[in-house]
């Protein structure tokens, strides 16, 4: 019983992290129709940068954020302006998969070249202790990850839904010419939108560096899981992705402690296919049915 509780607690905390990692993906898709396969690769790029900052300056990994977040933001702007913007709009979703797949390979190759293929890790003292409540251990690193995730998501949500920028971004994606005609600088806005997505990757990468060792090819593992999350949540719905992330995190945690790791990972795909059969547009997305 306590094992189950433990699994549940760990799953929920991990789910929070998944929510952060998937939020960027959801953002690109929801507001830009771009499937960003390279998101996990950027996560690990951020993790490596965090590692470099941590080892060369000896500071807390979170202190890398003031450096990595703006860097990634501008990197995102560049990727959008120089690459994504060149894709033909009618095949954007598809071609963006292939394009970003290529980017992921480029990043992996560069990481391998500069950091070698070996594992790197960032360990802090607080990352090995835990809070114990009623026999359930809550590791501090996961609590921190959860907190950071929640905070980032809140900021993201506020920016997207409440701000003028968010409005402009969504308008840009939905009808670029019309957006320009109401006075939105669409190129800039689209670039910033992509930048915001990559900025979440910077935060996610730092958190990831703190809780798991990594090597250049690590990102492959995450692609499947994160993609499953955003499909279950409903492609493009940031909130849907967050809820699906927590749900799948909990399911994974419980299955891990009751069955085994293979089945736990399998759950992501089982849920994915169940979602397809029951509600192809995902559980929270697809408010807009096809119009004829």
């Amino acid at each position, binding site marked *: 019983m306590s094992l189950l509780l433990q699994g549940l607690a760990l799953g929920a905390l991990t789910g929070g992290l998944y929510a952060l990692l998937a939020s960027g993906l959801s953002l690109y898709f929801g507001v830009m129709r771009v499937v960003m396969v390279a998101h996990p690769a950027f996560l690990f790029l951020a993790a490596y940068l965090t590692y470099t900052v941590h080892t060369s300056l000896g500071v807390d990994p979170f202190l890398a954020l003031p450096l990595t977040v703006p860097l990634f933001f501008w990197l995102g702007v560049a990727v959008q302006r120089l690459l994504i913007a060149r894709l033909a709009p009618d095949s954007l979703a598809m071609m963006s998969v292939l394009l970003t797949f290529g980017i992921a390979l480029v990043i992996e190759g560069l990481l391998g070249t500069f950091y070698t293929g070996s594992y790197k890790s960032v360990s802090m003292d607080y990352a090995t202790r835990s809070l114990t409540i009623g026999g359930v251990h809550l590791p501090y690193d996961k609590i921190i990850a959860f907190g950071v995730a929640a905070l980032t998501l809140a900021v993201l949500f506020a920016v997207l839904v409440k701000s003028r920028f968010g409005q*402009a971004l969504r*308008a840009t994606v939905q*009808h670029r*010419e019309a957006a320009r*005609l*109401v006075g939105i600088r669409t190129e800039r806005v689209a670039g910033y939108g992509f930048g915001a997505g990559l900025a979440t990757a910077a935060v996610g990468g730092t958190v990831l560096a703190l809780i798991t060792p990594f090597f250049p090819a690590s990102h492959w593992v995450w692609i499947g899981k994160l993609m499953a999350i955003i499909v279950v949540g409903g492609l493009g719905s940031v909130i849907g992705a967050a809820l699906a992330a927590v749900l799948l995190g909990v399911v994974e945690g419980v299955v891990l402690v009751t069955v085994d790791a293979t089945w736990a990972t399998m759950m992501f795909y089982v849920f994915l296919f169940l979602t397809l059969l029951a509600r192809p547009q995902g559980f929270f997305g697809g408010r807009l049915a096809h119009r004829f």
Partner: protein
Amino acid sequence: MSETVLTLEDVVAGYGRAAPVLRGLSVTVRAGEVVCLVGPNGAGKSTALKVASGLLTPRSGRVLLSGQDVTGLSPQRLLALGLAHVLQGHSVFREMTVAENVRLGGFTVRDHSRLNARIAAVKELFPVVGERWGSMAGLLSGGQQKQVEFARALMLEPRVVLLDEPSMGLDPRNTQVVFEQIDLMRRAGVAVLLVEQNARRALEMADVGCVLDLGRVHISGVARELAADPRLGRLYLGGAPAT
């Protein structure tokens, strides 16, 4: 004669590397005047409006706004100079609510009280905008979307308005509303460049008519006279009006 507000001068424009769509087009619109462009599908009417509003940079020729050369300026800049453009076809932001759509029409306006006054006004003109205020715009019927678009364009009070087939898909009552609005704008001294396939109706209310074909103005003149020209009528305006 009142001052010329918008002038296209020998404009040559096209898409990508393809042959030009507009081949030396010249049009002039004065304040308080409705100029109506008619012509077959693909003649370049929409393209002409896109050049005027800055969506498309011409390959040669000039665009003048109140005498000032604005060729190649971005739509944002032109908007600030008082030029609005309602696109052809459906250009609502489909996955945003009607409210968000209409408010975005006033994206450049920071003055909230002015915005709210405009919102109240457009809601009155198009009741459906008010009724479906919170619905996703993409879910409205074709004609309802068209009304939202028009309402969005009315959020700013522009000096020059480019309208690309504003009555397409609208029922007779709403068509009437749109034409009344155009008339109101004209009275308020706005310069209107109108593209209409409902050509007889449009020419009846316009001041100047231009027949555009293959990227050039072939015939232009007083709108009512054009509409009455029988040969022209057969070619461009369809069979005689049924009354």
